[in-house]
């Protein structure tokens, strides 16, 4: 079951998801991912698009052992909050690491990976995952 099964959606998000496109607030200085029009912290309208650093460290993580229906068969997999260099925080899967090898503070780097397949005839969705920094 993929709730947001839609070709236009995947197309629309490709730059933000494939290139880690964030937004910088000229008013309060915050960095957010993904890029958007309005700063969630101060309400300023007009964030500037900025390609975010591809390295960072793990703030917190979990291993998903009971997944939603469209990730069944992939478990266990690690989902983490990654703080990128510069301060933007991203939620993403970890790859190339077993759950027991992950810890808070682990240095990671972004890689391009498959996330899910919408259906037998649907789109294969890709995005950024992180792996231990090499």
């Amino acid at each position, binding site marked *: 079951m993929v*709730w947001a099964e839609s070709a236009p959606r995947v197309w629309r998000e490709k730059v933000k998801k494939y290139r880690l496109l964030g937004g910088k607030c000229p008013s309060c200085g915050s960095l957010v991912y993904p890029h958007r029009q309005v700063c969630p*912290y101060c309400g300023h309208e007009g964030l500037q698009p900025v390609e975010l650093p591809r390295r960072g460290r793990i703030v*917190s993580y979990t*291993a*998903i052992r009971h997944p*939603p229906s469209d990730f069944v068969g992939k478990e266990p997999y690690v989902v*983490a909050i990654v703080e990128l260099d510069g301060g933007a925080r991203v939620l993403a899967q970890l790859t190339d690491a077993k759950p027991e090898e992950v810890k808070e503070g682990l240095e990671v780097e972004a890689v391009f990976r498959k996330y899910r397949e919408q259906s037998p005839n649907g789109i294969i969705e890709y995005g950024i995952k992180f792996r231990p920094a090499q």
Partner: protein
Amino acid sequence: MAKRVFVIGAGATKVGEHWDKSLRDLAVEALLAAVKDAGVDKREIKALYVGNMMSGELQGQEHLGALVATWAGMAGVAAFKVEAACASGGAALHQAYLAAASGLYDCVAVVGVEKMTDALPNDVTSALLTAEDQEYVVFTGATFVGLNALVYRMYLTKYGVKQEDVARFAVHCHKMAVNNPYAQFRREVTLEEVMSSPLIADPIRLLECAPVGDGAAALVLCNEDFLRRNPRDVLVEVTGSAVATDILSVHERRDPLVMEGFRKAAEVAMKRAGIEAKDVDVLEVHDAFTVLGVLTLEALGYAPPGRGWQLVAEGGLEPGGEIPTNTMGGLKARGHPVGGTGIYQVFDIVKQLRGEAGPNQVEGAEVGLAQNLGGVAGTVAVHVLRRVR
């Protein structure tokens, strides 16, 4: 000037796996029980608010206002569904409160309902995830258990707390539910059982999670104008009602351990009610996961940050304790039929304030506070109730 609003009727179904009952059966049963408890003619109810999250995904059924009104024999009433994830019940109650307080409707009803056991577990997980950001959070394969696990791990690390100490919250809730005839799990669990139950999303274990279940709870509210025409002896007043939001996804919050939405909603509701946290005699917290219960105790100031677990360990949450909390079992053991939960919480408080809570009665309870969270506290509904003599 807002009119005073009172709860004059409360009804509920038992929470559980109701294989023989549909969503509408549950809603109608609870609603009619509340109407009967109120002792009013249901035709006097002028508006009906249905708190529900997932009927569209799990039953393929929306338009619950007209559906429930029809099956309860109340067609004609102003009615619609209110959705705010797991805070749907609390948000619906807020609407009902506003309607009665405004004076536009002098007698209204609210019913919170969820029917979860028709779907397979992974599909329930997916349906619950409609409360999160589909495009940038659900996309990652995170679950709600997983998102709370991220907060839980940060909590344990920041304060150097042992998981066993937080997990004890579940033991407390099960102990309370033994005496609640409406509870899904009327049996105790040991800390060893909790800590040896399967991992769902590290570090959260199965018995730290609220269960999947079916249920409905309902309230009849009226304002002071209605009360003058229909006087009664035992009264519970809604003295504070507030809803607040936080930045939706935890990873975007400045500090994921600070429940900013809860702080705001509690502050507004308590200010309207003219009380402070220390005045609360019975507390209902949204313990979808043990860590949320502990974080709430700290956010309300009953314990310093990182020390909420001590209240649990010392029996401070039991009737007669420092702050009696989830005295009928909370989400963990009374159960968490999502859209119903916010109403079940107030149902439980009404029982306490009326002195009808049975063996778990908090002696002389006058003031109750219910905290209902949607998502990882992205929406928070807080209600303050007071017994009026």
